[in-house]
């Protein structure tokens, strides 16, 4: 007990009235040991971020506050110390890094100045000493050209570089505890892998304890020594990684782990000979910014070829900026293309105007990523789903009846029809989006990251729904995702994209066991938890 770095006892954090529960966190007990990485895992709304903030007294607003319990650190109760004493702890003894490095850094200060600030607050070093220290820190997080970086502003760096700078800033004074609040969630898979290994290395080097907040079991598998599982503010399971991941005791933990798509490819199948429903040849799309002082042209799609056969699911996989969403929208003709050919069931649609495209809309429909932005907040659900058929001539009364049938098909209660989107959860809204797409009776369904914004348990349900519907209605599906686990579970073939080009296309099993392109190899290797073995079902 006495060798703990941080000890949380019976912590309770209240929420303002009107929230979905009275406390963000109730009676939490957590012990952080020296030199260990403790992962606090939970879904959104579980209160995990609140715990992180409570430690440093950074809870938002007067009505969200610590209502009970103690946080013992270096002989003091952090929940009870004065503001002045807390300021001495922050940044020096306990440091914190956040999820979104773009917004977590002051856009108007240089990187050098922001790191300098920590040194100025807590040390009496002179200017030259501080500068030397900052340069050393930047080098230790493997940032190139530290001298130039000193004078750079956050917007001039990439996401990964910004996060490295934040880590440098946090470790500047070798704190005993580092709190990392979902630091890799907003990053690409390959960048994520680099940052995770950086944190691990630095942690070992400095002997820092780390409290790592995450929602991703893969990350836990890669980096944790101890795991604590949080469900709606209550700690349901805690223990060494091997036992929590290998033999979870609590039903919630088991359910969560079961919901994570396994990094196991489906069995090999014979190549499909079904007719082509989508044929995209040499598709091009460029975004140009031709300013007065030179042009900045981005090739979002650089001569892309894609084939989709009837009844199969093709995955479009890649990191941000790879062009996968752009390709999906190009095929659905939600945006015009600058070159190439697109054939939907044999019909060429690349050059059609919006008006000419209208009759072809029935063939292909899209399901979108953002459950909060993909539904018109001012429309009733039944109208949202019925709108497509009404546009194409179905009588409104009949269209609404059919819409209700669609809602039942996606697993929603008929009473949902008269309600508005904001009354539903994220997963339910995605179902409404799927119903809207299906109401048009398309042959091809294009799903653009349909589960990326959902919690892992809800994700599993929506994926199951999509699989079920696809089988029942004999659909062909184009599935865009950045999450390789999901792609392995759902897709028959996978096309890997990078910088507007298709780098490799192959059946799922083949691409997993024998990737041909080095980028594909790197992508699969970067998936967190790649080494994690599945628990034996109890």
């Amino acid at each position, binding site marked *: 007990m006495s060798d703990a770095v941080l000890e949380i006892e019976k912590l309770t954090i209240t929420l303002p009235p009107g929230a979905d529960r009275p406390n963000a966190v109730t009676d939490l007990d957590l012990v952080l040991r020296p030199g260990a990485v403790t992962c606090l895992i939970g879904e959104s709304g579980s209160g995990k971020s609140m715990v992180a903030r409570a430690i440093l007294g950074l809870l938002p607003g007067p009505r969200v506050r610590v209502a009970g319990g103690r946080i013992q650190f270096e002989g003091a109760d952090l929940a009870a110390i004065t503001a002045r004493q807390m300021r001495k702890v922050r940044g020096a003894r306990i440091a914190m890094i956040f999820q979104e490095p773009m917004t977590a850094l002051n856009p108007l200060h240089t990187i050098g100045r922001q790191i300098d600030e920590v040194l100025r607050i807590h040390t009496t070093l002179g200017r030259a000493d501080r500068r030397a220290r900052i340069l050393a820190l930047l080098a230790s997080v493997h940032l190139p050209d530290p001298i130039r970086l000193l004078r750079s502003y956050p917007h001039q760096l990439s996401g990964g570089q910004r996060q490295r700078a934040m880590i440098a800033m946090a470790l500047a004074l070798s704190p005993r505890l580092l709190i990392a609040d979902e630091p890799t969630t907003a990053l690409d898979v390959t960048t994520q892998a680099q940052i995770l290994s950086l944190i691990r290395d630095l942690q070992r080097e400095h002997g820092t304890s780390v409290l790592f907040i995450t929602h991703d079991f893969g990350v836990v598998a890669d980096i944790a020594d101890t795991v604590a599982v949080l469900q709606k503010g209550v700690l349901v399971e805690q223990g060494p990684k091997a036992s929590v991941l290998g033999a979870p005791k609590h039903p919630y933990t088991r359910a969560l782990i079961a919901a994570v798509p396994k990094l196991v490819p489906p069995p090999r199948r014979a190549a499909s000979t079904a007719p082509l429903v989508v044929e995209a040849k040499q598709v091009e799309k460029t975004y140009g910014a031709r300013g007065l002082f030179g042009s900045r042209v981005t090739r979002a799609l650089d001569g892309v070829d894609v084939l989709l056969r009837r009844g199969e699911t093709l995955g479009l996989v890649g990191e941000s900026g790879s062009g996968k969403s752009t390709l999906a*929208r190009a095929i*659905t003709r*939600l945006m015009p293309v600058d070159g190439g050919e697109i054939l939907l069931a044999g019909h060429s649609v690349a050059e059609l105007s*919006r*008006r000419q*495209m*209208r*009759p072809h*809309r*029935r063939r292909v*429909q*899209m399901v*979108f*990523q*953002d459950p*909060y*932005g*993909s*539904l*018109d*907040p*001012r*429309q009733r659900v039944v109208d949202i789903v019925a*709108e*497509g058929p009404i*546009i*194409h001539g179905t009588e409104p009364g009949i269209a609404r009846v059919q819409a209700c049938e669609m809602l039942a098909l996606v697993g929603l209660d008929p009473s949902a029809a008269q309600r508005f989107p*904001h009354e539903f959860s994220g997963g339910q809204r995605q179902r409404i*989006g799927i119903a*809207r797409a299906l109401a*048009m009776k398309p042959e091809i369904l294009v799903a653009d990251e349909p589960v990326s914004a959902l919690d892992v348990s809800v994700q599993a349900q929506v994926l199951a729904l999509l699989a079920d519907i696809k089988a029942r209605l004999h659909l062909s599906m184009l599935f865009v995702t950045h999450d390789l686990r999901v792609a392995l579970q759902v897709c028959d073939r996978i096309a890997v994209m990078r910088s507007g080009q298709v780098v490799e296309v192959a059946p799922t099993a083949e691409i997993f066991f024998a990737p041909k392109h080095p980028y594909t190899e790197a992508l699969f290797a970067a998936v967190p938890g790649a080494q994690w073995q599945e628990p034996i079902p109890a």
Partner: protein
Amino acid sequence: MQTALARFASNRLALAGAAVLLGLIALVALTPLLYPGDPFALVGPALQPPGGQFLLGTDTLGRDVAAEIAYGARTSLIIGLSATGAAILLGTLIGGLAGYYRGGVEVALMRLTEFFQTIPAFVLAILIVAILSPSLFSEVVAIAAVSWPGIARLVRGEFVALGGREFVLACDGLGAGDARIVFRHMLPNCTSAIIAVGTLLIGTAVLIEAGLAFLGLGDPNVMSWGLIISSGRAVLRSAWWICAFPGLAILLTVLAINLVGDGLNEVLNPRLRER
């Protein structure tokens, strides 16, 4: 709708503003009863201080200041509402076209909007009224001509933001035409912002109208608060009430309008941007 009204009502300041406005509207409606006759008519001895028979005194020619103020209220309301309505129509059209079609259309229309926002509004308004000869109509035209850019920028911003939202893209995918997307989806999602800004615009319109009348550019056949103030300027030393009360009326009216506008903004805007 119920909850929106309730939330508005819980804002005491907004409620007070609404009460004042209702009182104003009542005054305008009842004016022919309360102060029958022509407000320009001479009804008593000149320069009577407030109190007694004339609640707010009489002016330099012996007109009842209270009657003048009551009739002036009508002018302010008419001009305020018409000018704002015209500005909203014009601004929504221009901003909507710019925000929906983007590209060259957007650039051109936004340059135009910026231009009209840059040039000194009040000076332009004066010029327009002077050139078209002072009348209710020319005042409405002038005020609308300087007020529309604010709405245009707002609507264009909203349309650009909405255009990127996935539900608009989804409508496109369903095969909806431009008209349907704009009128059924985008405009309804803008109305709350337009209402909130539009209400504040009414207040500005009343202030501009008062300024124009003060400078002698008001409709000569119509009583206006600014006109009363300008007529009282010469006797400011001795008969301060002629300038004081109409100005107070302006202040209270614009204040009430702004309070209501702020209240509407708070109620209408956060809900629909929910997460």
